[in-house]
């Protein structure tokens, strides 16, 4: 087995001397957060987990600038089993092209995981957002999803409760968000290809256009 093979594995921990993975990153729209993340943004072709204490703490808001940019590309933004109605006026107000929004609401737990994997793997979604219950998720399932996101070259985002922090996960990036009065604090729990366990505070009026030259950066 040559080293080349290992070079292309994305699920092997390489410590702080990680070679430049030919992985694409997606600008988050928050300069201070981009600086914290390896590759300078959300990892494409991988899973991101965003953990929150409760619903109104800005976890979804954090993804909006990147989703707005992705909605300018031809692929779907898939929402698998969202807990409430994604509110069209708010999405449009944040610059998301609604014609790319695809809502998938399976009834059974088994179907939820199936739909999530299909969406990640299909190659027709630029981003897949999902709200799995803790019962839905085992580490083995997460590994499959991680591979599916790689195959579909899509940004997979799982929104989970902060309790999930205790369990390990193969996701490339895990963040914990907390709200304070006019902003949120983002704490990096884990990021592949980086060494940081840092925090950054973002204010609610902080969003900016993640660069006119397109959301994708080659790292």
């Amino acid at each position, binding site marked *: 087995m040559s080293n080349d093979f290992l070079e292309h594995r994305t699920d092997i921990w390489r410590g702080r001397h990680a070679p430049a993975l030919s992985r694409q990153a997606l600008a988050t729209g928050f300069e201070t957060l981009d600086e914290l993340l390896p590759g300078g943004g959300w990892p494409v072709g991988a899973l991101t987990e965003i953990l929150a204490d409760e619903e109104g*703490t800005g976890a979804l808001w954090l993804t909006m600038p990147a989703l707005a940019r992705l909605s300018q590309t*031809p692929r779907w933004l898939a929402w698998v089993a969202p807990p409430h109605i994604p*509110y069209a006026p708010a*999405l449009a107000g944040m610059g998301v092209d*609604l014609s790319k929004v695809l809502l998938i609401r399976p009834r059974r737990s088994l179907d939820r995981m199936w739909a999530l994997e299909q*969406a990640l793997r299909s190659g027709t979604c630029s981003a897949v957002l999902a709200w799995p219950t803790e019962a839905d998720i085992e580490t083995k399932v997460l590994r499959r999803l991680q591979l599916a996101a790689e195959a579909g070259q899509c940004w997979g985002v799982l929104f989970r409760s902060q309790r999930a922090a205790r369990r390990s996960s193969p996701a490339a990036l895990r963040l914990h968000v907390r709200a304070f009065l006019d902003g949120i604090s983002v704490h990096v729990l884990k990021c592949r290809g980086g060494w940081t366990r840092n925090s950054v505070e973002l204010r609610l009026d902080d969003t900016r256009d993640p660069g006119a030259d397109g959301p994708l950066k080659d790292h």
Partner: protein
Amino acid sequence: MASPASKARVGSVFALRSPLPTSRCDPAAAADAPAAGSIAHEAHIPTNLWLAIYLFALPLESLPQARSGTSRSRASPIPVVVYQEQGRQSCIVDRNHTAAELGIHPGMSLAAAHTLAAALRAYPRDVSAEQQALTRLAAWTEQFTPKLAIVPPHTLLLEIAGSLRLFHGLHSLLESVRRGLLELGHQCRLAVCPTPLGAQLLARADGATVVTDIKRLVSAVGPLSIDYLDIGTKGLTTLRRSGVHCLADLFRLPREGLASRIGPQLPSFIDRLLGRQPDPMAFFSSAKVFKGTLALPTESHDANVLLAAARQLLLELVACLRSGVSAVSHLEWRLTHPSHPPTTIEVDAVEPSRDADILLELLRLKLEHFRLIGPVSEITLATSPFQHHAGESLEAIRGSIRRQEMERNVFLQRLRTRLGLGAISGIRLVDEHRPERAWRSCPPGEGGGGAVFSSRPLWLLKPPMPLKSRNGRPYRNGPLQTQPDRERISTGWWDDQPVDRDYFIAHGAKGGRYWVYRDLRHPESWYLHGIFA
């Protein structure tokens, strides 16, 4: 004027006022004004150019020929009028030239018309004949462009930017339309404008107006009377009281005020009129469909045999689609069994397609989950009406687009097959102030439209969740701190679901941000309506 035909308006076109406006604004002002834009400038042709054909005499022209003797009877010596019941009165909707010379005009009561012309011939209006005539004429205008829309009751809209070269320029195109319609016995007023609504208004107001430069649009439509807006007498009265008489006055007013006083559609109407917002049209196609049947060589259960026959039919279909510039989105396959009732399989493509491979793949996916009740002897394909297909010029780069289209279709088909049709949707905006109605679900890929509000939460709760209240404050796992700014939404009095609410942003104990409201009809009752997720 509440004409029955006005109910049949095309949904995507904000309705203009019905056929023959009983304009109380100074007609001279409306007629003179567009003169500024009347000079054609063909130097710069925008990507979209709309020709509105306003068939102002359709009520008269739709009378059976025996009565009116074609539209040439406009010049006949007998005064002829068409009337319509309105409440207890009969009102004139159209009249011929002789009747007009006797002083009979639309809006006048039939009784009054009889006193002016003793030999008057009066006929009731035939709305369905008008609709049929309009549809026939739409099919006739397909020779000028494949992109055309019907705007009931009396207007056709043609997108002509792509047709100018073929018809040797704008003026020769307009001349062909006018002459052709006259030969068919129809008079018309034509106007050309970069936006569909602009063209409609100009054609109805005056005709013969050509605006090709969007920069001249405001000055061209500004002087038109607000009577052309379909906002009800009440809205018109409100506007007139505020000193608004023409569209230019309207453009100067703040959007928020217009939305709350007249209705949320008005600002969006203005945006579409002036081309600040796209105005998608439901294009007309003269209802071509495909139907073909193929007998299998032998009766068979085998999916591969079925698919081979299906492919044959699809190739025939595609040949038909290519001869026009068309595509289909809905196919119905019917499998005939020698000893059972037939099986029907419906297939929907995400976007209209003309690609045999994609359409075949969709059928194959359906068949995978199908248990045939018996051998099949014959297979029939029927399609929904053909739709306009966007641009053949893309053919060169179709390789990758086609693969994407294929993948999108197959992906959605797979989801639908396992999860059911209702589990997959898109979302779109609706012009509405009531937050729960400012959106609706739609087929995937069709989202868009409507007004955007700032400061709305990403999650909406349906229905709103009642909150406990303690000392007049909302409570949810602890007291919620409301912020001082409130937004009052008080609307919907015109239908049966009025709302009167004060909305606040509230903070929970753990920092969560919520969108809550107090119902002003039941003070002290608080609801959670959204979450700033």
